[in-house]
């Protein structure tokens, strides 16, 4: 997670939402669905902010309103202190939609070049960034294939790459890990953490709770367009009435003595177990070994780490 100092800073909020309401209407303009209902929230600079909720809870609608793609029925939305449809503000935003909508007849390289041109990036850094991003998402070997031929996971990776071509200050990710294999999920989480370390602000929506828990500083949980819970992840999840102690394996007598002391102190026997590696880490280890012994892949290739310009290794290359 990003540094607490960044999260708790007094800098103006990157995103401010006050009383946001969105009502979708039918052909006759009659109210059909109240997707967002009186939403209030604030995203501060440098934090990773998660919007959680079941399907249809208003996560994507909120994100699209932030980007000026949908129009609010009520309330106020400011991004970097400006209305969401402000063109200059959008220069500072990167957006990964829920479905990676790409031009199917373009190759990944052409796709990134196209989006880079929309930001008026000069040719040399545009090519350089495209190359770095393609390596980062593990698709350098498929750079000349039309993206229409790609699997969902591969399209997702190109979608992520296009969202980062402008080295945005605010990254909006709608279900970023949907359709990705565990390696892709891990890479995206590492990327988010790397971006947050550089002071970037990230707003993401997801219903994959483990992913959110791994990276988010603060979350809101939406249900039927309303906030049901919000706060720091640690604050919300911490069980203050329990304590876990993890130590290297100890002899049986020491363990018995410690258990005795704890029973005496708390009045009940503690649970003792050997911790297990989580399945994600075990899977990543197995695939890493397979990568080392395999030939050229047909799908996603081995990805490099975060693109250099995104993790700050290339200073002075802003858009």
């Amino acid at each position, binding site marked *: 997670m990003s540094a607490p100092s960044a999260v708790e800073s007094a800098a103006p909020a990157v995103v401010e939402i006050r009383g946001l309401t969105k009502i979708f209407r039918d052909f006759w303009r009659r109210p059909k669905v109240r997707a967002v209902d009186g939403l209030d929230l604030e995203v501060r600079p440098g934090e990773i902010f998660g919007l959680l909720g079941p399907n249809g809870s208003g996560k994507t609608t909120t994100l699209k309103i932030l980007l000026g793609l949908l129009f609010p029925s009520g309330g106020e939305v400011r991004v970097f202190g400006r209305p969401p449809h402000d063109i200059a503000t959008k220069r500072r935003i990167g*957006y990964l939609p829920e*479905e990676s909508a790409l031009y199917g007849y373009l190759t990944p390289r052409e796709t990134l070049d196209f989006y880079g041109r929309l930001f008026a990036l000069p040719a040399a850094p545009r090519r350089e960034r495209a190359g770095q991003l393609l390596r980062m998402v593990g698709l350098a070997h498929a750079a000349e294939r039309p993206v229409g031929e790609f699997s969902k996971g591969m399209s997702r990776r190109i979608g992520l790459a296009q969202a980062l071509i402008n080295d945005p200050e605010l990254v909006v990710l709608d279900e970023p890990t949907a359709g990705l294999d565990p390696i892709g999920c891990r890479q995206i989480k590492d990327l988010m953490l790397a971006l947050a370390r550089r002071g970037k602000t990230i707003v993401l929506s997801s219903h994959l709770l483990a992913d959110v828990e791994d990276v988010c500083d603060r979350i809101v949980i939406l249900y039927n367009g309303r906030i049901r819970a919000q706060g720091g992840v640690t604050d919300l999840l911490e069980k203050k009435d329990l304590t876990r102690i993890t130590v290297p394996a100890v002899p049986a007598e020491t363990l018995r003595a410690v258990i005795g002391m704890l029973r005496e102190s708390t009045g009940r026997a503690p649970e003792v177990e050997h911790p297990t590696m989580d399945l994600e880490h075990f899977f990543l280890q197995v695939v890493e070994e397979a990568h080392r012994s395999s030939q050229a892949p047909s799908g996603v290739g081995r990805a490099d780490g975060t693109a250099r310009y995104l993790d700050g290794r290339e200073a002075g290359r802003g858009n």
Partner: protein
Amino acid sequence: MLRIRQVLVLAGLTALEALRQPICLLLTGTCVLLTALAPMLVMHVFGEEGKLARDSGLAFHFVFGMFVAGHAACACVAREIRCGTTATVLSKPVGRTLFFASKFAGVAAVVLAFSACATLATLLSERVAEKLHTGPEGWGYVTDWRAGWLLAAAPFAAAAAAGAINWALRRPFESTAFLLLLCAVPAAFFICGFFDRLGRPAPLDFRVDWRILPAAALIAMALLVLAAAAMAVATRLPTVPTLTVVAGLFLAGLVSDHFLGRRAAASPAALFLYRLIPNWQNFWLCDALTGGGAIAWSYVAQAGLYAAACVTAFLGLGALSFAHVEMK
């Protein structure tokens, strides 16, 4: 400056996307092929072969052009809104009006490229048609088979070359074939200039009926108006309903002289509708070429102003509508 660059980028992408769809190549290639074959397949029409070839070529130009314009316009607006690419682009620093205008520029580029191809094909087709030939070697009715086969071979040559390029360089087949067809038809036109109608080498002289040019230019204008109308409708309706509405608009414009023009003097409602619906008769002037007649370029300029007004009106309505479209 940034906005001009964005227009160029978006228009270029729109044109490229349209060209990479097989339907665009199929329609253009078929139009050229049918235009080439028309004068070679009709016989015994009592000296009207030239007129028949010319009218057929212009009709193919109009009909196939309508499909090219309608399909490209729907694909770049309705389909893109539905599949989400529009939302992705609009999340970048791109204004909605600029986006919409750029899309039209891209579609217009494709329509004009198609029209250039179809116009050259019609010029050559008219040359191919059987005509009375008189010379020192005698007289008789002559069909310019060499020019006909050369024109008919152009789509196949373009497809074969694009196939080879696709195999060797992995370039996309459809757009390469379309661009090669844009080169092959003028090449055929130019090569034919070095042969007379009997197929003998001769000094460069194209031996075509240049009166066809203004007629073809008028059709190209009509296609641009249709494309603008289709784009405006496509901001609110999916592809098939859009094409239906545009087909209705086309038919209404064809018959507006008959049903509305005659009543315009007596009925304000008829006058309003007559003024409102684009009159396609202004753009279809093939009959003016019959019997050695010609279409004055001053008329073409006037029609150009009319077409520009129609395009501006449709694009204005479309941009207004697009500004309020929600990217769900």
